[in-house]
């Protein structure tokens, strides 16, 4: 078991370093320009948002429509702190403070609302994120509707990568622990989970708080990379966009969220050249995918060596038959 774990870690580490190195190299030789870099930043931020929302909605089964609210808390707290203290430690402190503030708000909101089920919870979280937005709109320190400008940019590709990979690794680790399984059991059958000794309220709140924390991290990444914040960036539409990534990738699949974040960014980038048709085609793609794969691209499965093997066998079978026929 221990050996297996170490091997898995080593493999993960190697592939991560490779992914980082390739992009870093492409940036260095100038193949990846500023525009593509911004797209990559958006993808990273969306991955963090989608994976953290997936923990709440896909894995714990709690339908939340307020993720943009938590993101905005992380963004503003980090933005304000970094403006006041424009150094790298200032930015890191801001990120931590933003994430912790988002988590605290998540905890306080989750405690009463997670007793609600389904539709009620969705409406309660939606209301919460609207309240957060209006608070930011009316505060002095956030500069209201005019927005917070000139946030020093500390997040480059290296930081983007570290935050994104770190978030995904931590959440995947959590899901593979007894605490994570307790969360998943709530999605599967809340009554059975309680009967088997799981304090479902505690684990719902825990999942919600962890999700809010990483949404805060995503907000901080956004603030520092795009150096401008206004409350409207974090409206209802933004929460829906995050949910779309989760549903499209597959509720309960981390790999699904990652793939969907990339896919949607690519589609939307390609469509930049057709501004009139952009939203129409974008929506059409979503509708078509959901018709043919209502469970999302990945369902609740993960990309793994075993899955590749299965696909391999499937291909072999297909091509094997071809050969027989010939």
């Amino acid at each position: 078991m221990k050996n297996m774990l170490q091997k898995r870690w080593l493999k993960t580490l190697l592939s991560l370093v490779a992914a980082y190195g390739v992009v870093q190299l492409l940036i260095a030789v100038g193949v990846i320009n500023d525009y593509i870099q911004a797209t990559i930043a958006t993808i990273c931020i969306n991955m963090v948002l989608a994976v953290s929302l997936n923990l709440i909605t896909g894995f714990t089964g709690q339908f939340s429509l307020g993720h943009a609210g938590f993101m905005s808390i992380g963004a503003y707290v980090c933005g304000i702190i970094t403006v006041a203290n424009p150094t790298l430690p200032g930015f890191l402190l801001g990120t931590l403070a933003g994430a912790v503030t988002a988590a605290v708000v998540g905890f306080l909101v989750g405690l009463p609302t997670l007793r609600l089920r389904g539709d009620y919870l969705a409406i309660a979280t939606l209301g919460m994120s609207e309240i957060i937005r209006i608070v930011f709109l009316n505060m002095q320190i956030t500069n209201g509707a005019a927005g917070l400008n000139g946030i020093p940019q500390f997040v480059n590709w290296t930081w983007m990568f570290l935050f994104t990979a770190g978030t995904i690794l931590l959440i995947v680790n959590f899901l593979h622990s007894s605490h994570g399984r307790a969360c998943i059991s709530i999605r599967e059958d809340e009554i059975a989970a309680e009967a088997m000794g799981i304090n479902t309220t505690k684990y719902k709140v825990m999942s919600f708080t962890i999700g809010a924390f990483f949404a805060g991290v995503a907000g901080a990444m956004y603030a520092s990379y795009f150096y401008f914040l206004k409350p409207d960036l974090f409206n209802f539409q933004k929460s829906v966009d995050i949910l779309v990534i989760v549903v499209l990738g597959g509720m309960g699949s981390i790999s699904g969220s990652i793939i969907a974040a990339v896919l949607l960014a690519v589609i939307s980038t390609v469509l930049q050249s057709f501004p009139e048709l952009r939203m129409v085609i974008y929506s059409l793609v979503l509708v078509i995918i959901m018709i043919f794969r209502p469970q999302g691209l990945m369902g609740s499965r993960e990309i793994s060596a075993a899955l590749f093997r299965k696909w391999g066998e499937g291909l072999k079978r297909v091509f094997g038959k071809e050969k027989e026929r010939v």
Partner: protein
Amino acid sequence: MAILSVKKLTKSFGGLTAVSNVNMELQEGELVGLIGPNGAGKTTVFNLLTGVYEPTAGTVTLTRNGKGKEIQGMKPFNICKAGMSRTFQNIRLFKDLTVLDNVRIAMHQNVKYGLASAFLHLPAYAKEEAQLVEKCMELLRIVHLDGKAGELASNLPYGEQRHLEIARALATDPVVLLLDEPAAGMNPAETAQLTELISWIRKNFQLTILLIEHDMSLVMKICERIYVLDYGMIIASGTPEEIKADKKVIEAYLGEDVNDA
């Protein structure tokens, strides 16, 4: 010594009194049957004992390690921690999870490693997880599912799902086990195997078992005592022989012959 003592347990749903003034006492190590016609209130009794419903009135006392504790009205997960576990009549497995995970989740309350170990997979995590798997496999071996640990629970045939429910209930380390129609939908061969399994786990886990079952052959064969519930009330209790001869019981089962078994 009484492990489970139920006094004047009552539950009303609006105007309907589903369980009314039920008194029951289970001695340590007993295997007791709870029978009665459809809709008599048997499952409701289980739901009251395990905290799914809050009783309208009455007390439930559970004794573990010689210490009695009133558990009525407590949250289900706390009742589970106090030592009561159950299976469900309409199977409630964690369907999209593996057989192993189903059992592992039921062991969660005894897991000691904290969130830091969970997030970072520290040595404490690896050590305890390995132990968990070992314990789960032991339980799965008992219900003959060790060969299917990696399969999704929903892919198991019906009978095996019932076995998995029993393994999952055992994983919570109970003193009292409530089985709600464990033989429902099983053929005679499967029922015979299940009968043996229940006797075996009672002996080897030193459990006290309360069993709801419509299959009279199973009930009469393994239960030492039986309570008969009708319209929410206990109408008779005693040994299988006494129950078979009881006039009220025969009336309640009008048409169904208790002596058939």
